[in-house]
């Protein structure tokens, strides 16, 4: 492969509410068995990119645990491999990552010491499958300086949280508004970019000299008319999970057979850390309808239209509807949960009632668990 990869996984925002107290968005559990960053990592691996840097900053513990071994994504290589970079204090820098461009600048040696001519930049909070080689071929054929992977969103969707762009007939990007109040198009940037390595080094260095730190604002938008920046449209499934509503919807999408087939069965696979949990167990009283149940679960109650992550215990006479139960949750007997996301590793007391009345309720109880 002619490219190296950079995954931006440092981000956080308050739209994730309590869910981001514990982890970076890139470590959010998805579809029962994955974490959000698995999609970018697997796409890199499946595109034969052998050398990948993950840039993390905010609350990286959970992400670092997930990335403790790189073999699951086939990055356990002598040549290249997976590198996780967190901000460090050095002689000439004592800043945190002040923005996406600054994060790359602080790890510029990774780019400088590589020999591959191109760089694929992706973010850790998007759910999709993409062969980056196709974007790279397009990038070369357009003689572009930067190629931005973009997607047309349905007219009904509010695109105000994305970078919204407009292209000319040749697909060159003419307008680019970051998180606009009023969007003038429904084509958005997916946060995936292809750029020549030397070009990136040059832009990032100039950016740093001018004390600018943001890749979108200070490179894409600022250089829009000076550099040849092109858009590459994708039509397949793509979803960004960085609000609670989007996170909930993305998970629920996996109850649709075509989405499940696309991610679970069609080649290539999405990889994740293997947990060595036993098969899910259904005891008398279990009544599961239209749900995803992961390995290590023990089900004694009723589950409907829900996503149940790994190693969840559902007690007798529980009713779980239209909810997401994250991994390693213990639900005592007679619990009613509806329209909720239950935070991972929590213990919910027997006979309790949780219902998201308008919108999704996030259940965080932090009860002690008594383990024999």
């Amino acid at each position, binding site marked *: 492969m002619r490219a190296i990869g950079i995954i931006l996984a440092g981000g956080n925002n308050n739209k994730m509410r309590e869910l981001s107290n514990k982890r970076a968005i890139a470590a959010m559990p998805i*579809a*029962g*068995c994955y974490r959000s960053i698995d999609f970018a990592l697997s796409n890199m691996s499946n595109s034969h990119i052998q050398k990948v840097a993950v840039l993390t900053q905010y609350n990286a513990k959970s992400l670092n645990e997930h990335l403790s071994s790189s*073999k699951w994504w086939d990055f356990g290589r002598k040549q290249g491999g997976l590198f996780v970079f967190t901000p460090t204090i050095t002689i000439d820098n004592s800043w945190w990552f002040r923005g996406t461009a600054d994060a790359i600048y602080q790890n510029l040696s990774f780019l400088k010491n590589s020999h591959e001519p191109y760089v694929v930049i992706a973010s850790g909070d998007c759910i999709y499958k993409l062969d980056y080689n196709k974007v790279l071929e397009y990038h070369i054929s357009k003689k572009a300086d930067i190629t931005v992977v973009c997607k047309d969103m349905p007219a009904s969707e509010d695109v105000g949280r994305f970078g919204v762009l407009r292209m000319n007939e040749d697909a060159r990007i003419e307008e680019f508004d970051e998180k606009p109040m009023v969007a003038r198009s429904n084509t958005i940037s997916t946060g995936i970019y292809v750029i020549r390595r030397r070009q990136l080094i040059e832009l990032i260095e100039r950016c740093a000299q001018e004390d600018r730190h943001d890749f979108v604002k200070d490179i894409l938008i600022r250089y829009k008319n000076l550099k040849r920046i092109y858009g590459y449209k994708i039509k397949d499934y793509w979803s960004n999970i960085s609000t609670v509503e989007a996170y909930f919807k993305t998970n629920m999408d996996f*109850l649709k057979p075509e989405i*499940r087939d696309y*991610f*679970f069965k069609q080649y290539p696979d999405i*990889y*994740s850390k*293997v*947990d*060595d949990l*036993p*098969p*899910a*167990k*259904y*005891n*008398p*009283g*279990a*009544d*599961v*309808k*239209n*749900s*995803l*149940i*992961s*390995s*290590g679960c*023990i089900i004694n109650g009723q589950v409907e239209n829900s*996503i*149940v*992550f790994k190693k969840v215990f559902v007690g007798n006479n529980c009713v779980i509807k239209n909810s997401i139960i994250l991994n390693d949750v213990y639900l005592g007997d007679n619990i009613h949960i509806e329209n909720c996301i239950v935070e991972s590793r929590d213990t919910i007391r027997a006979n309790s009632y949780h219902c998201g009345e308008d919108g999704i309720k996030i259940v965080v109880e932090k009860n002690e668990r008594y383990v024999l």
Partner: protein
Amino acid sequence: MIRKEMIAMLLAGGQGSRLGVLTSKVAKPAVSFGGKYRIIDFPLSNCINSGIDTVGVLTQYQPLRLNAHIGIGIPWDLDRNIGGVTVLPPYEKSGNSEWYTGTANAIYQNLDYMESYNPEYVLILSGDHIYKMDYEVMLDFHKEKNADITIAVMPVPMEEASRFGIMITDDENKIIEFEEKPENPSSNLASMGIYIFSWKVLKEALITLSEQNACDFGKHIIPYCHEQGGNLFAYEYNGYWKDVGTLASYWEANMELIDLIPEFNLYEEFWRIYTKSDRITPQYISGESNIEKSIIGEGTSIYGKVYNSVIGSGVTIGKGAVIRDSIIMKDAEIGDNSIINKAIIAECSVIGNNVELGIGEEVPNKLKPNVYAFGLVTIGENSIIPSNVKIGKNTAISGVTKVEDYPDSILAGGETLIKAGDRR
């Protein structure tokens, strides 16, 4: 110099012919068990959990699946710089090449492998038992007793004792005599086929008996060491241990996993069982399905009803299908409205629509009454069963079968239907 205190030699070359069509294309240790595991996962996980990081796996019969499963040992953390797992097939020598003719002969042919690790002790295991055991505790016992050989034994009901190798011990657990499958057993301590040898004793015995035809641990090596006046001790084990050598015991051991609190508990944090998981995705349970008292593997799609069953990963169960008391292995597909009663369906098999398994009265199998018994329907891997047929009890089917193979669309109880061809 490399020095390992104890290395393990895992005998995984046997066919396991009493498992009938289940082992027609794979060695017994590679047969699926408990939804996502294979039988060999249990001794391999025991090894790593006991701190043994050097394991030689001796293969001979149909090793492809076993080799693919073990790979370089990543799932068990047996990918090591020094040691780790090594698959040891029989190999050609400059003179007198032979297959592995017996358990001890197989170990003898790999003396060089063992020698290269300079072990003090060698643990001999077989790849066909389901149990969790800390071999380190057994080794402590071996050292404490200053034994030459320690044999793991477990008490069995007196009436079953005649099926096993029986050890007769004194108060100190020292073995004073043994009986191989005795008619009138004088003890109920059965050998579990797990031995710890002090390396020097093992090496000496293997070399001395190297000319012995089909040299076997139970029949030759252990009696020889006993005659030589060696210190043989019995290490009594009282946990769960199951030989899954027959279809009935294989079926039973699987069914024991679905009890409310199983005696053999896979859900304990302590002493995990590891396996190669090629699937990690969750299972989808549809709106029309109903599942009770079952365990179900990863990536399975269930549109029908499942009761008292063990379902492997990647299985699809069609709409209106009803599965009871059955074992369905990896990637099998069950058609719509099929009724499956007390069947073992091996990997990648396809059952058509409206098929009924396990009908009618129980009659003994005509071909192999001792193998296909217990009222089970056994279907080998990669088989195809056409739609709209009915199949009786104590039957076995393997290969690609067509409607013409079933007179009046029925395979009567006790019949065996072996056809050529694979689903893929």
